């Protein structure tokens, strides 16, 4: 009885699919260039000035990546690269389109001396695309000697297995960096950034990949023990503490860091990754059950902890976003009181704050007056007068309104008003695309993601080495889960948590990490799909020497 992997391998063509890959890549480029052209034609009635730079730049990068793949990983899955290029290109076109409409506000803010970080930045995104694809090329080149993991300058996925614990440590350090004073930066309330040079980097994006390696390396060693040895209580078999211990420690550590960083989306992502890889390694449904139980306990505890009140509120916003629009206040009773600028309580507290500011001014305390004026009256009314917890659902609601505006066919690129959504170029880029490309466009995007994930899973099944199987399965699933958490959040399927939308969101860290992810899958699919090594000693038929 052969396994599914054997069956798939038996049917693999072991062909180089270079022509198919090239054709798909050309299609992806046509798609991207058309998107750019449409932005210009719809907005200004002429081809955009940025078309040669952005479209041309992306085309050069994509074909460079293709030639490296064709030369050094010829048996690789032919659709992975074109799909990633298509996503990256559509995202870049959207950011370019948003940049055109937000740049005026940005310039006004800069000229008046204010910081204006929240803006679409197309040149920056093009640069990060360049860096991302360069990393893809580098990764494919470095990982080329799969069979000789000791070859100089080679670091194949298989090599990583040797450094399991070191990589685990690396993941923890990356996760911790943003909370280290002096290194970390807080943007939009989430402490997930570090400042390197003039750039903000999200180390969590890279920690994600390192954690997959760590889980894979650890589980591949322990899986036999974990799935076979252990006490059985009823239908559930419990693992030995020493098998479970280290992995629980790192898991609790991750969650702890993430709760402190207030980045629930990432916590959910790592948790799902952990449970799914545990399941792949041990085939034990009981593990999944234990995991879901832990998650339920975690969420329950989080809702009870006073400083974790925003978990409750996130759920409350998800259920009823309307009262939170432009500011809502959750009272101890669970009732939500709107404190938006139209309410009497807002106006009242606005006056109170202004009076206080004037009072400080008359006392000659200009700095304090300025600080008082900077306080949002809605927040002030909520925390002081109502003694509740303040939140604002305007982002989510504006995102949903954008989706509604788009409808089935969308307004067309360049013809909607996606910039109304706060963070329209990062967290909410999916809603921005939904407005202009419509339901039709979003279905295409989701299908592209689903295809990448399924191709990754196929690579995992086709891989021969257990570590590589877990590795490929892990990175594929983490991609699926990330898309689910962020897209589910911005479409109100699940409570909204901040995560980047792979390849679409503006941001260098996310692009770089995801291009490395594609490089890993490309390399592994090449290894899985290439013909098995031929026996060298072909000695022909045994000669029969006549004895006569």
């Amino acid at each position, binding site marked *: 009885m052969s*396994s599914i992997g054997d069956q798939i391998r038996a049917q693999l063509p072991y062909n180089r699919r270079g022509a198919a890959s090239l054709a798909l890549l050309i299609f992806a480029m046509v798609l991207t260039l058309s998107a750019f052209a449409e932005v210009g034609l719809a907005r200004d009635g002429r081809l955009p000035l940025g078309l040669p730079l952005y479209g041309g730049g992306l085309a050069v990068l994509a074909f460079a990546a293709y030639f490296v793949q064709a030369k050094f990983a010829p048996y690789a899955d032919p659709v992975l690269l074109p799909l990633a290029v298509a996503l990256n290109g559509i995202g870049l076109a959207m950011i370019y389109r948003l940049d055109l409409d937000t740049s005026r506000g940005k310039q006004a803010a800069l000229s008046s001396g204010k910081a204006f970080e929240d803006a679409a930045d197309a040149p920056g995104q093009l640069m990060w695309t360049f860096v991302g694809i360069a990393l893809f090329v580098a990764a494919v080149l470095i990982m080329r000697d799969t069979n000789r993991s000791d070859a100089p300058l080679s670091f194949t996925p298989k090599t990583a297995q040797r450094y399991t614990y070191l990589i685990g440590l690396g993941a923890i350090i990356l996760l911790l960096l943003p909370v280290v004073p002096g290194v970390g930066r807080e943007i939009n309330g989430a402490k997930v950034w570090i400042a390197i040079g003039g750039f903000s980097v999200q180390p969590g994006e890279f920690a994600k990949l390192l954690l997959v390696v760590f889980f894979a390396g650890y589980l591949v060693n322990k899986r036999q023990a974990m799935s076979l040895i252990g006490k059985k209580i009823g239908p559930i078999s419990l693992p030995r503490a020493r098998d479970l211990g280290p992995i629980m420690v790192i898991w609790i550590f991750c969650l702890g860091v993430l709760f402190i960083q207030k980045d629930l989306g990432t916590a959910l992502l790592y948790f799902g990754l952990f449970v799914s890889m545990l399941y792949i390694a041990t085939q034990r449904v009981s593990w999944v059950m234990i995991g879901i139980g832990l998650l339920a306990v975690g969420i329950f505890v989080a809702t009870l902890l006073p400083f974790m009140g925003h978990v409750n509120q996130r759920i409350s916003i998800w259920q009823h976003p309307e009262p939170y629009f432009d500011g809502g206040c959750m009272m101890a009773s669970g009732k939500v009181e709107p404190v938006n600028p139209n309410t009497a309580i807002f106006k009242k507290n606005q006056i109170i704050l202004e009076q206080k500011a004037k009072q400080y001014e008359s006392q000659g305390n200009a700095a304090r007056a300025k600080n008082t004026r900077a306080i949002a009256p809605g927040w002030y009314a909520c925390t002081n007068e109502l003694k509740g917890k303040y939140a604002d659902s305007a982002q989510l*609601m504006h995102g949903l309104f954008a989706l509604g505006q788009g409808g089935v066919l969308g307004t067309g690129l360049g013809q909607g008003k996606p910039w109304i959504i706060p963070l329209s170029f990062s967290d909410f880029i999916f809603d921005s695309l939904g407005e202009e490309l419509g339901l039709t466009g979003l279905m295409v995007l*989701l299908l592209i993601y689903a295809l990448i994930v399924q191709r990754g899973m196929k690579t995992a099944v086709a891989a021969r080495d257990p570590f590589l199987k877990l590795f490929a399965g892990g990175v594929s*699933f983490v991609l699926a889960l990330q*898309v689910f958490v962020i897209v589910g959040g911005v479409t109100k399927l699940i409570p909204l948590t901040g995560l980047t939308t792979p390849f679409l969101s503006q941001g260098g860290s996310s692009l770089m990490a995801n291009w490395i992810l594609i490089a890993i899958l490309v390399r592994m699919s090449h290894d899985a799909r290439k013909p098995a090594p031929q026996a060298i000693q072909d000695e022909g038929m045994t000669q029969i020497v006549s004895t006569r």
Partner: protein
Amino acid sequence: MNMDKPIRRVAIFGLLLFFGLMAQVNYVQGSEAESLRTDPLNTRRFSEVFNNPRGQITADGQVLVKSFPTGKSNPKYGRTYKDGLLYSPITGYFNGGASKVEMAYNSLLGGTDKRITHQRWFDTFIGKKPEGADLELTLNTAAQETAYRRLKAQTSQGRRGGVAVIDIRTGAVQVLASFPSFDPNEVAPQTGLTGGKRLEALDAQTGVIKPLIDNAMSQTFPPGSSFKIVTSAIAMDGGAINSQSQVSTGQLVLPESNKALPNSHDTGQCGGTATLRGAFAESCNTTFGKLALEMGIDKLNAGATKFGFNRKFEIEPDVQPAESDVPVEYFDPATKKKIRTGRDGTARSGIGQENVRATPLQMAMVAAATANKGKIMKPYLVERARAKDQSELYRARAQEYAQAMKADTADQLADMMRAVVTEGTGKSLAQYGIAGKTGTAEQGEGNPNARWFVGFAPMEKPRYAFAVVTEGPESGGANAGPIAGEVMRQVLKK
């Protein structure tokens, strides 16, 4: 141990996640899209509206409201109102936000309505914007003009007046005029910020003059003696009396204060006893105060509710006329408590004073009931909507609003209203061929009277019901009556 099986299961789970997302996106962008687009919190509703021409609003074949290209990028289209002062009580204004018919039919005028987009799905497919539909009002433009001109001439300086005329068989509104009015051209999209400020200024006006609130259906006045139609109807519907019954018209001492309820005159029919018809024609207050006292405030309230008092209705989608009231209890601002209308108050309520308030439209509906066997048809403003290709998208349907009283009671009341003009307080109006009830309501210290004439025309075989109110000195018969006569002359010309 092989990992292929769990990997495949995780892959299927991953696919299920994507199916979940696809289902949600379909739900949001497919079935929820319309309600998201019209969500009151959605500011996008107003951002697109200046980029396309809106449909026209016409009446009697005249174009009253239309869009025109401004030649600028924002707004791309402006809107002009012909004789805005005359028609704004019906058309309302449009400046992104809207009121009255402009608001009620916003989606049809703007071309975003499903009835248009479904029909023109191919246009959306090729990116052509659907065009707004044109509306036809039920209005009689000549009569509307007469009404506004006469209101302007007859209303005291700084005071208000309103006229409502409806077709008794369909409920179609023929005239809905208000003075003072405002010109929607001043706040139309092309006026930009100036218009926005002007609208805020209009909205912020305090005192009795609130131009944005029309005096024909959105403002209430004490109906005074014209409310005796309702009091009579309730009493006669009870079956105890009819128009020929002898009733006391002499002095009435109010039970609580021991003060007399005054009559305007104590001669003629109001001298002691008369038939109900006679008392009605000469508008003897004491008779109707007594009738109200006998039936009590609860019955008066319940009876008036049958005419449309104490409740709201939508004359067009999202457009509600102000609620007319015969309150059983009222809010006392001094003690901040609700106080039940007492016996004195009940007597005064019976003659349309105390806290009784009515819109001209409501009083026209009362008159319509008397002229139409007790039946009131639901008033409406828009006759039909046509797409740009002239296909009909909407057509008004006559609907029964209420059976306010028995047909027999209505016939007797109609006869009593004719008597007002032939032998009572409205004798001076005989030349106009209309029947009705006069009313001169006091509005408290420092305020002029609310002068009413409520009735129907023609006198025999009535077709239209009307109500006119103006504020000023003198009486309803002398002031409001001639306005009603001239307006109805215009209405009947058609």
